């Protein structure tokens, strides 16, 4: 299985070469958190009038009295043992918090990505097949406008239109209507859990809550995806091998779908990693607008209250997701493009 080996080798190489940068990001966050205003030791002390001795003791417990390089080493050792510290705001270990909140963020991101792809690919293809036609101009307009609307504005406008005026959307808070029963947690993805439990009321409720934030996020990445699809499809349609297909009498369907489209999707696949991580970044804004109980809003709250352990944990989580997403993209790319095996 030369293919599997070459894909694995390539993906492994990419992961290894991305580690220094990710490590840098983690360290950078760690150092930033050291200069956050506020003293965690005072926060953790029993009360506002805790004595100086007690605070000093807590500081020692937390290792805050040691020099920064040593703190960094301790932190790295803790990461190694899976200990990401404790959140001051929730009082829970950061790992627990992240694990319970991650599915919300992932569900939102995945649904949004799927929505964006379902719209962007056909639009990009149609536009490329008929350059300068009406549809092309419409797509171009959507692309131009799409990158200009900030997610926090489009999210609020959605709420205004669908909740306030039309009244068809639910109250924009949380993942599921508080009156609908929460399905038993299996994966944490409400749509999946509800479907597994056969609780269709809960499913509908979750879907209704999800649709607006997902659309907001989808709109945000629709433009770059459609633009990329259009551009790469246009380039492929004028390429020599499409001309060969035409010259040798292949049907239009075959030329467009098998020859052009498959090649055109390769560059789209390569930017998927970047698209996914911009979405992770944009999650912060969308989760805030829709009071979505995801990891990003968790990290934001922690940041605003100078609670550093959750922020560090969040950045570490992002780095891990980043590695996994890029690994997936690399593997998919390896399967889709035979040329990479010779690199």
């Amino acid at each position, binding site marked *: 299985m030369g293919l599997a080996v070459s894909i694995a080798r390539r993906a492994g190489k990419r992961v290894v070469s991305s580690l220094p940068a990710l490590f840098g*990001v983690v360290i950078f966050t760690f150092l930033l958190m050291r200069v956050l205003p506020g003293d965690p030791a005072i926060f953790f002390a029993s009360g506002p009038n805790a004595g100086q001795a007690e605070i000093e003791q807590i500081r020692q417990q937390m290792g805050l009295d040691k020099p920064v390089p040593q703190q960094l080493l301790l932190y790295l050792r803790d990461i190694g043992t899976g200990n990401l510290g404790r959140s001051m705001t929730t009082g829970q270990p950061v790992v627990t918090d992240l694990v319970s909140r991650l599915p919300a963020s992932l569900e939102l991101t995945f649904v949004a990505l799927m929505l964006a792809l379902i719209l962007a690919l056909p639009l990009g293809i149609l536009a490329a097949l008929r350059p300068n036609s009406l549809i092309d101009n419409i797509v171009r307009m959507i692309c131009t406008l799409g990158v*200009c609307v900030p997610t926090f504005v489009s999210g609020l406008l959605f709420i205004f239109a669908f909740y306030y005026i039309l009244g068809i959307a639910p109250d924009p808070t949380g993942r599921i209507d508080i009156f609908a029963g929460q399905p038993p947690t299996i994966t944490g993805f409400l749509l999946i859990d509800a479907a597994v439990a056969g609780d269709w009321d809960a499913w509908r409720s979750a879907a209704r809550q999800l649709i607006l934030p997902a659309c907001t996020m989808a709109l945000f990445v629709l433009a770059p995806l459609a633009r990329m699809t259009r551009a790469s499809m246009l380039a492929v349609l004028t390429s020599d091998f499409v001309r060969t297909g035409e010259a040798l009498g292949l049907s239009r369907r075959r030329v467009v779908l098998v020859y052009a489209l498959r090649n055109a999707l390769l560059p789209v696949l390569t930017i998927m*990693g970047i698209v996914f991580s911009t979405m992770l970044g944009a999650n912060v804004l969308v989760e805030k607008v829709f009071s979505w109980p995801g990891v990003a809003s968790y990290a934001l709250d922690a940041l605003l209250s100078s609670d550093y352990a959750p922020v560090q944990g969040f950045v570490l989580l992002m780095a891990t997701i980043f590695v996994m997403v890029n690994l997936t993209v690399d593997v998919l790319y390896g399967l889709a493009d035979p040329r990479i095996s010779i690199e």
Partner: protein
Amino acid sequence: MIAVLRHTGWVLRGNPVTMVASFGALVLITLAIVGPWIVPYDPTASNVPNALMPPSAAHWFGTDQLGRDVFSRVIAATRLDLAIAASAVSLSFALGAMIGAFCGYTGGRLDRWVGRFVDVLMAFPLFVLAMAMVAALGNRVENIIYATAIINLPFYIRFARAEVNVRRNSGWVEAARASGNSHVRVVMLFLLPNVLPAMAVQISLNLGWAILNAAGLSFLGLGVKPPTPEWGIMVAEGARFITTGKWWLVVFPGAALMTAVLCFNLLGDGLRDILDPRMRT
């Protein structure tokens, strides 16, 4: 020079969208300069009895929860938002172009490392890092500028590096070396003039991006502090009232954001056409 102007005129005439965009950008810049002096009300003066009024003849864009005139606030915010974006972009451009051009020209192991590092950073959710930076360093304008500049930096490094890299082995660079040009001369007199037009396009596109980033930070409460008029804060403050139908608090600053980003994006696309030397006859 005259030929360039004539060519610009020719492109603009054939491309009304770019013309409108340049006009829009001009208006924005003018507003940024004179805005605070021409607004009808003091953008920070509250007038509580007059709070949350919908748009009217007296208050074109309505009033906010403290009774401040939204129109005046939107106009007055132009200066701050553009200034943040412009300073951030110039900062990251200056640094990024230098690092990128240097790496791209020298090549070798350092270049490969920088390239890989930057690639990873590009694909990392840097917005999160910007948030952390502002939170840690404090809610001050210069920190927003630094944070926005830093998250744009990898982009410029990568761009300058790629542009220089494709030209590094081109015949005319080798010819320049054969003609006795020193490396500094090759970079300054040969490579940079050829790379700058493409960079100018990127700067314009990036201005829009930077405006969005800065506004996003403020929206989260990690930026300029209220009551300073700023589009992101205004949207954030209006967000509380959207579920009760007070749309003007979000729509007008949001529209201002959109217009600004749109203008710079379209301008970037137009610049690409103007500066492409192949299109000059």
